[in-house]
C-alpha cells in the first residue's frame, strides 16, 4: 500500500517535494518503516550518514496528529509525518 511521508525540518532535504511516496506492506510497524527509509537513503543518497541520523533520531506522527511509537502498525494507506529533533522559539 502507498504511504505519503510528510517531510519537516531537516528531513525536507530528502526530496524537492514536501513529501515522499513509499510502497509498504500492510501492518508495517514504525520500527520497520524506519528501516525502509534507511534503505531509501542508501539507494537515493548513497547512504548519506547525516540523513540516516535524522531518521534514527526522528519521531513519527499519525494522520490523527498523534506521536506514534515504534510498535504502531500502519494498517491503511495514510499520511505519516516525520518529526526530526525540534528546536523552535
Amino acid at each position, binding site marked *: 500500500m502507498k504511504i505519503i511521508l510528510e517531510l*519537516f525540518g531537516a528531513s525536507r532535504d530528502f526530496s524537492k517535494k514536501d513529501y515522499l511516496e513509499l510502497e509498504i506492506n500492510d501492518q508495517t510497524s514504525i520500527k520497520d518503516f524506519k528501516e525502509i527509509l534507511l534503505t531509501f537513503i542508501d539507494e537515493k543518497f548513497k547512504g548519506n550518514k547525516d540523513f540516516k541520523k535524522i531518521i534514527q533520531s526522528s519521531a513519527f506522527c499519525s494522520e490523527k496528529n*498523534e506521536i506514534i511509537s515504534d510498535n504502531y502498525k500502519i494498517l491503511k494507506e495514510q499520511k505519516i*509525518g516525520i518529526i*526530526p529533533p525540534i528546536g523552535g522559539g
Partner: protein
Amino acid sequence: MLHTKVIDIKEKKLSITEAENFISSSDFGASIFFSGTVRNQNNNKDVIGITYDSHDALVIKSFEEIYNETDQKLNIKDKAVFIEHSKGYLNLGELSIIIAVACKHRDEAYVLSRYVIEEIKKRSPIWKKEHYEKNESAWLKGNPILNEKN
C-alpha cells in the same frame, strides 16, 4: 483564556499589539510579554536569517496541552495566554514567537511565561534553518521530541 496560532510570514507578521489586546483585562494585575527574535550570531557563525518550519497541527496541539496543564502543574487557573509562532523566512530582528500572559499577580505571571516557552522548546515541532553568507544554510540539530504516545 487561550489564543494560539502559527503565522505564515508570507501572510502577516507577529504583532505585540494583538497580543496586548488579547490579554488585556481588569481581572489581571500582571502581564508579561516574551518575544523571540532572530539574532545575528549562533555557534560562532554570522547568521543573516532563519527559516522556521512547523507541523502546524501538532504545534497548536502542543500549545493547548501546555496551557491546559498549567492549571494543575503550576496551580494557575485564572490567566490569559497568547502564543503565536512564525513560520517561513525571517530576517534579523524579526519576531519568531510572542508569548503574552496575564495573571492576577506578578509571581504567577513570571512563572507561567517561563514555563510556556521552556515547554514549547521541548515539545512543539518547530524547526530552524539558519542562513549564512555565500548562500549557505543549515538545519539546527535540535532535540528529539518528547511526549510519545502509542
